[in-house]
Structure formats: C-alpha cells, structure tokens
C-alpha cells in the first residue's frame, strides 16, 4: 500500500469518524454497514468492468435476485399456500422451461427453412399457453390462502447464511442467459440488455404475489447467524449487566452490538471477495483477462476465446452482486421491491467503481466507502445546507421549493463527481498498477 493509498483511506476513515463525533456513532455505523454492502456489489462490477471491460448496467436486477433468494430460502414456510398450488406452479415453470429447451433443440437440429420456423414458433406459442393453463389456476389457489399475512409459497425456513450463496447462484444463472445472447456483439448491446433484464426482474418481484408477496413486501426475514435481536439482548440479564458495567444504556448497547456484528460479518465477506479476486487477478487467468480487455483482437489472435472468457467473468461478477443483494435483504430483514431503483442500485455502484479506480480492488473499496458515505450523508445534510443557503431569502414559494427539492441534489452531485473524475482522473483515485 503506497503512501497515497494510505492517505486516501485515512481521509475516508476521518469522514466516518467525523460523522460519529459530530452526529452520532449509531449513524456512522449504519452508514458504514450499508456502504460495505454496496462496496461488495461494486467489487462485482469491478470484476466485470475493471477486469474485462464489460459494460453491464443490470446491478439492480442481480441485487434484487439476491433478495429474492433470501425470501425463498429463509422466509418461514407457508405450508397451506404451498399445498394449495405450489407444486402446480413449479410444474408450470418446468413445463415452460421444457418448451423453451425443446424449441432450442428444434432450432439446432432442424435444417433452415419454413418448417423449422413453424416448429420453433409452434413450440414456443404452444408452450406459453400450456404454461399459462397450468400456471394461472395454481397461482390463484396459492394467493387465495391467507392473503392478509401470506398468500405466497413461502420459503424453506433455512438460515440466512445459506441464502446468500443461493442469491449468488440465482444471479449467475440469469447472467449466463443474458451473457449468452448479448456478449460477442457490440459492447452497448450488453448494456441495453442488462438494463432491460434488471427492470424485468424487479417487475416480476413486484407483480408475482405468489412468489414474494409483491409490493405487499415480505417482512420478518431471519437475521443471519450470529447477529441477535435487540429485544432479546435487552431481555437478557447478563447483557444488561455487562452494558451497565461499561456505563452504557442497554438499549444503545444492544443496537451497537448488532451493528458491530453486522460490520464483522460484512467485513469478513468483503475481505474474502477481495482476497479471491486479487488471487484471480494475479493468476494467469487474470493476466489473460486483462490482455483481452486491453486488446481483444490480439488476445483472440493468441488463441484466447474472448467471448467465452467474457461470459465467465460476467457470470462471476453478477454472482458477487447477487451475493451482496442477498446480504442487503438479510440485513434489512425484509424484501421491499418498491425500493429497487436503478439510480441508487445500479448507477451509484458504477460511480463507486469509476471514482475509486476501475481494475483496482482497493480503489473500488475506497470508492465504495467514500461514495456510500456521501450518498447517505448528503441525504441528511443536504436539506440543512439548503436551509443555510436560503436563509437570507424571503419566505415564499421559491424558498419552499428549494428546500423541498434539496434531496434531489445528490443525483446532481453524483453526476458531477462522475463527470469530473472521468475527465480529470479517468483511472480513478487509486489507479490500476
């Protein structure tokens, strides 16, 4: 770590410490935890963009898939709902997949011509209607059971820690399908395809009530091991005694302990991801990836399978993002599809990677912590600044309007930061070596 890197990390640490001293330590910890989570997603983007030069803007979708995995794996089971039609829905999905696979095989095996087009189209259209015929009644049945509190197929009731890798796998599977179609074409196509799939994933989670209750939200998702609940801690005489001995109010102490445990957990995952990607980056595989990124034509001439490697790295990066998304949902304890918004979940992550230094994991971490802090603090501080700025103005609609719109300033701030970094320091704060 060079002096400049240490200095930059020190400066970011000061930001968090400053928040702790000036505002509250609870806030500083909360911001740090959220920033760590987004940083892990940013590492995923860095794998795609920094290592391989792939421009994917589907981060929001993969994050949401991770969240969905938490619901499916660790939400409490809704046995009655599942019995009402869970198997039927599963069967419908299998039928739909089989139709798609059959169409794919027909396309591969038959020779080109009208017959092939007819068979493939027939399989797809027939498969769709068959799917709907099995799917619709079962969905109605599942959603009819206990709609106030459940109405969805429920989860498996397994620990959150199992849900996280599943979130990664789910994201990887979708990434495979997208990458298979959009990679190997113009670079913008991947961007547009991922932009689309992200919107669709969020639309599915919002609208398929049988899956995760849609916008009615799933709450009470279990906390990951070893994080306890604050109420349990406060009810524990041993904990209350220890807290009082340390001179802390038991309530504050319990909240702080929970935050610290999350910090530990996320920090561990972050370190593992960094370690693994650093190892990968310095392996022959990593060198090959960078060679492909820097000159696709010459890498291809050396016999490297450019599209294949791109697909690989796209899947890996997406899996990391899905993992981070699952952790986010576990921490929130609920899945709220309405909150997934591309500006905060996709483009913010991109700003982190670019500002920090694409291709450099340390840079990405720095960018993540810095931008994460900025994003969350500007939310709180922005209106106050505007209050001061507009203080000399007479009371009136203009002042009210400015005060009301202050929260939108952070989009503007992020955009300006991104443009300035791209222009004057295109390799980021900590450039790749």
């Amino acid at each position, binding site marked *: 770590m060079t002096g400049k890197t240490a200095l930059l990390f020190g400066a970011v640490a000061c930001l968090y410490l400053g928040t702790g001293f000036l505002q509250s330590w609870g806030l500083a910890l909360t911001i740090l935890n959220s920033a760590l989570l987004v940083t892990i997603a940013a590492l995923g983007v860095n794998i795609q963009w920094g290592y391989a*030069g792939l*421009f994917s*803007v589907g981060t929001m979708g993969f994050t949401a898939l991770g969240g969905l995995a938490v619901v499916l794996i660790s939400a409490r089971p809704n046995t009655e709902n599942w019995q009402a039609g869970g198997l039927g829905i599963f069967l419908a999905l299998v039928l739909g997949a089989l139709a798609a696979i059959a169409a794919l095989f027909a396309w591969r095996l038959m020779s080109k011509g009208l017959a092939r087009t007819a068979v493939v189209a027939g399989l797809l259209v027939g498969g*769709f209607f068959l799917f709907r015929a099995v799917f*619709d009644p079962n969905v109605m049945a599942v959603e009819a059971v206990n709609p106030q509190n459940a109405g969805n197929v429920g989860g498996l009731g397994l620990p959150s820690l199992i849900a996280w890798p599943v979130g990664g796998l789910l994201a990887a599977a979708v990434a495979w399908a997208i990458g298979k*179609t*959009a990679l190997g*074409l*113009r*670079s*913008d*196509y991947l*961007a*547009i*395809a991922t*932009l*689309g*799939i992200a*919107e*669709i994933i969020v*639309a*599915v989670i*919002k*609208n398929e009530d049988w899956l995760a209750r849609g916008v009615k939200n799933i709450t009470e998702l279990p906390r990951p091991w070893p994080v306890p609940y604050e109420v349990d801690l406060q009810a524990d005489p041993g904990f209350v005694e220890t807290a009082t001995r340390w001179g802390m109010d038991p309530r504050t102490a319990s909240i702080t302990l929970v935050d610290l445990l999350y910090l530990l957990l996320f920090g561990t995952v972050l370190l593992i991801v960094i370690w693994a990607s650093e190892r990968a980056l310095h392996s022959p595989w990593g060198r090959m990836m960078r060679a492909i990124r820097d000159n696709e034509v010459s890498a291809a001439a050396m016999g490297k399978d450019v599209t294949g490697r791109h697909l690989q790295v796209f899947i890996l990066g997406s899996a990391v993002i899905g993992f981070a998304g699952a952790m986010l949902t576990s921490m929130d304890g609920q899945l709220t599809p309405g909150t997934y918004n*591309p*500006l905060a979940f996709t*483009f913010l992550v*991109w*700003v982190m990677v*670019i500002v920090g230094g694409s291709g450099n994991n340390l840079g990405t971490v720095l960018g993540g912590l810095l931008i994460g802090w900025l994003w969350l603090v500007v939310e709180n501080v922005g209106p106050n600044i505007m209050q001061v700025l507009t203080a000399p103005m007479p009371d009136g609609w203009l002042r009210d309007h400015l005060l*009301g*719109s202050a929260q*939108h*300033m*952070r*989009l*503007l*701030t*992020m*955009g*300006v930061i*991104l*443009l300035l970094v*791209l*222009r004057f320091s*295109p390799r980021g704060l900590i450039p790749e070596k």
Partner: protein
Amino acid sequence: MDILNALVAFLNFMFIPAVSYGAQLALGALGVTLIYSILRFSNFAHGDTMAFGTMVTILLTWWLQAQGIGFGPLPTALLALPVGIAATAALVLVTDRTVYRFYRRQKASPTIVVIVSLGVMFVMNGIVRFIIGVDNQTFTDGARFVIEPRSFMEATGLSEPLALRTTVVVTVVTAVIAMGALFWFLQKTRTGKSMRAYSDNEDLALLSGINPDRVVAITWIIAAALATTAGVLYGLDKSFMPFTYFQLLLPIFAAAIVGGLGSPIGAIAGGFIIAFSEVLVTNAWKKIVTYLVPESMAPEGLLQLLSTEYKFAVSFTILIIVLLFRPTGVFKGKSL
C-alpha cells in the same frame, strides 16, 4: 358474430393507442439513432433529455395558461414546444462543449463515452427533479376529443364506443411532420448530405472539407428537437413523470436496435414494431373475441397474454430475438 363492433373495439383499445405510442417511440429512437450514427455512441441520457425538454415546455405552458393564452382546440403545449426545443438544444450544446467534445477529440472508446453519458444522465435527471419534482404532472388542455365516444355510438348505432382523443391526432400529425422534415433535411439539403457523408465515412468526409464541429452541433440540435417533441407528445398523451421518461430508454433503445442502429427508417419501423407488440400483448382481448365468437363460446378470462406491468418484458424479448437472429436489425444498421 359482430365484426363491426369487434373492429371498433380493436381500433379503440389496440390500434389507436399503439399508433400514438409508436409515433412517440419512433421520434425518440430517431434521436438515439442519429446520435449513434454521427457521434458513435449510445446516448443513455436521451430519456432525460426528453424529460428536460418536456419540463421546459410544461413550465412555459403553465405560464401561458395563467396568462389566458390558449391554442384554440389544440393543446397550449404546442405553442410552448419551440421554446422547449430551443432550451434543450442549448442544454445539449453546452453539454457537448463541456463534456463530450473532450472525448471526441481524444477518440475515446465508445464504452467510455457511454459511461460519460451516464454521468450526463445523472446531472440532467437531477436538474429536472430539482426544478419540477418527481410527481406526476398533467398539462393537456384544449378540446379533449376529435371523435367523442358517445356521439360516435349515437351516429353509428354501434354498441362499442370509439374515442379519438385530440392528443392522439396531434401526436400523429406532429410526428409525421417531424419525420418528413428530417428526411427532407437529410436527403435534400447540403448540411443533411454532409451529415450522411460524415456518418458513412468520417475520414472521407473530413477530406472533402466537411466541418465536423458543424455536423456535430447540428446533430445535437436535431436530436434535442426530436427528443423534446417525443417527450412533449408522450406527456400530452399520457402524463409527465421524470422516472417514466428514464424508463422509456429501454423501449426506445429496443426500437432503434430492432430497426437497425444508425438507420432512420429503421428507427421509425422499430418504434411501431415495439409499440404494436407491447399493446397487442399486454391489452385484454376479451371484448374483441366476445364479439367474434358465438355467445356460448364467450371467453371467461381477460385473454391478456401478459399483464401491463410486464410491458418492458415485451420490448426486451423483441430485443433479445433481434440480437440472436439479426444483430444488425431489420433494416441493416451499420453496427455489429
């Protein structure tokens, strides 16, 4: 069996909405495709450029309405549109001067410029939200209908109403005028020809004395005009909300790619392909089918292939199909 009523229901619920939506998408996709062919990058800020132009137009429309100035049966926004276009053109020209020109001179890779356009998108999005807020705004005025449903039913004696809203007619007429003017400009004028030359082969165009800065500036102005017009028409027809305009990016890109990035005709065709597929797939067919089949066979369900929330899935699926089978688009664009 009641073919006439079925036809009217089809026109009313499918055809008319799809035509006006298609015209709006086509105008948007034309802007994207023009920028792509001259400046050689996919402009992610296009949706927010539309939002900005629409916002200026809305603000001016409100002012005009407050002054008691109207446009007869037509929406007042049409009077404000030229100012909206001018403001948007000024904005994109300033953006080009301060942001994009640097990368053009550097011959930066298209992906970098796309990321730069993300930054521009953030800034424009922030400006729009800052000025007008995130809420839904309506600014339609003037006569509501050209064909009123009730009088249509009385005049024809059919049981199915047909509504032709003024905004639909305005959309289609404006779009036709804008497209006609664009094609005339590209085909007949000296500047338009120099733009086509620049798009075909930059080096040869420079060699024959075409001023690249002029070509780029004119491209931005046209793109701004198309974006503002598309945005205002969409807002008149439906309503204005900054986030919706950001989301329009997907169908607009899908339209441009389906038609063939870089091909103006393709952009128009793509806009209508996307709009018609979206409307036909997400609207309920129940009413139309009920008129066509014997009473005993009348459908019970809505006969809706996909719910309206999945309209993006339609543009996306078409996009994927095109990428798989014909990556250059229906009308051969110049990209692959």
